[in-house]
């Protein structure tokens, strides 16, 4: 669906921020992007969105070369959710915020109404439709950011650290929403520092370090190697750590641990 090949990027043509970035995102998968602060994760997502343009290399979306496309051209394919919702929201009401994208992309009035209702329902924002986004709590603002990105029916949703600063309940709601969207066929690229999210949801993990890809594969393959995980500035997810301490096979989720424990008489409480 999306293919990046030999991407290099620098802000000043001198100091490279991204070097030799090549990977592909397949339709319908959840792909996680991790790495230390300043490793180039957000820069990479901004390049994909067209907010920045690569110095060299190519980006193809469904076979079409979109390397030189700008954000406004990519908007019909990609929904981008900023790390900080305050940077994303600008309209006077939640309703206006959501319909901004569809109106810019020339949806019909009927389509816009349908899309608004669907997105409000999906993100559980029906009761907030007439409120000002600026007055909402952060968790709801983040959901609104996702709603406004979803309103244009993108093929790919980019979430830049969506759970940062969220309370437990909002975090769970967000992750459920992401899962639901993915089950409905949406491809999701999530930038996160949360290893539990990666372990539980991501099919593919890409780890960046100093602007280079240091790992691209199944998360389990990385977490099985604790030394490499730590070297890349990451931590083992809780489930992996607990399953290792209990002497079980590597488990990526608490549910996995529970399943494995079923077969171990010595671990029954």
């Amino acid at each position: 669906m999306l293919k990046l090949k030999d991407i290099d990027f620098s802000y000043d043509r001198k100091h490279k921020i991204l070097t030799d970035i090549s990977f592909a995102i397949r339709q319908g998968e959840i792909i996680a992007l991790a790495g230390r602060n300043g490793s180039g994760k957000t820069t990479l997502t901004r390049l994909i969105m067209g907010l920045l343009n690569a110095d060299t290399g190519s980006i193809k979306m469904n076979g079409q070369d979109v390397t030189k496309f700008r954000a406004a051209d990519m908007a019909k394919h990609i929904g981008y959710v900023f790390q900080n919702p305050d940077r994303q929201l600008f309209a006077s009401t939640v309703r206006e915020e959501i319909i901004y994208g569809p109106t810019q992309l020339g949806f019909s009035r009927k389509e816009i109404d349908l899309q608004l209702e669907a997105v409000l329902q999906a993100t559980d924002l029906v009761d907030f439709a007439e409120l000002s986004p600026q007055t909402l709590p952060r968790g709801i603002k983040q959901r609104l950011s996702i709603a406004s990105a979803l309103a244009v029916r993108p093929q790919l949703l980019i979430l830049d650290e969506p759970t940062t600063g969220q309370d437990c309940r909002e975090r769970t709601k967000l992750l459920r929403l992401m899962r639901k969207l993915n089950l409905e066929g949406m491809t999701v690229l999530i930038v996160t520092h949360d290893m539990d999210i990666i372990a539980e949801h991501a099919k593919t993990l890409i780890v960046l370090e100093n602007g280079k890809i240091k790992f691209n594969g199944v998360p389990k393959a990385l977490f099985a190697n604790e030394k490499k995980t730590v070297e890349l500035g990451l931590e083992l997810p809780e489930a992996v750590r607990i399953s290792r301490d209990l002497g079980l096979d590597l488990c990526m989720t608490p549910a996995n641990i529970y399943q494995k424990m079923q077969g171990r008489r010595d671990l029954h409480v």
Partner: protein
Amino acid sequence: MFSFAAFTKIVFAVCISVAALVTNNINALLLFFSLELLVVLVSGKLDQGGKAILLLVLFAALLFAVQMFAGSSYTIAMVSALRMLTMAVSILLMLITTKTQEITAALVKQCRLPYQYAFMVTAVFRFVPDLLEESKSVREAQACRGYKNTGSPLKRIFGYMTIIKPMVFRAIMRSENMAVSLEMRGFSESKQRTFMAETKLQLIDYLAIIAFIGFCSSIIQFI
């Protein structure tokens, strides 16, 4: 330029601005502007100030064109444009070569301005890059949802209007946050305040101030 104290640079900016206001001579204004460009080059700040100066030149050209269109004489239109340009560049030059803390300290210690007012002056300058950043973030958020500011120049100007409302709202929020943050860290009318920035004038500052005032006066007098 770096070796001068902040107060000296404030005097330079004020002198040029006053001289530009007083004179109606195109040659004198051109000379002041050339001098400013020379200082930008010598101080090695072309990277920082070049783009802003270019924008100011374009704005001056627009001002000139509007005045001519409105029926003013060539001299009046040219003087207005150059006056604006000279004054704006002098302030810009002061800002890009001086730290805001030094300007605040100079305004309080040497210009005897109450700290609150001095702080307000420098806070305004500090808000300019913040506002530019805000406008960039709003434009990016709009672009991510398909907004293209294209079409005729008039349409594009109206397009920019869409970012003003959220920008003003965010600027108010930011200023409120800043006010709270300042109070929490002891911002008050108290005179017991330590300035980290060095503001003491050296011999070279006194000489430069006298020479510059003499230079501006003689240009107004003789050109």
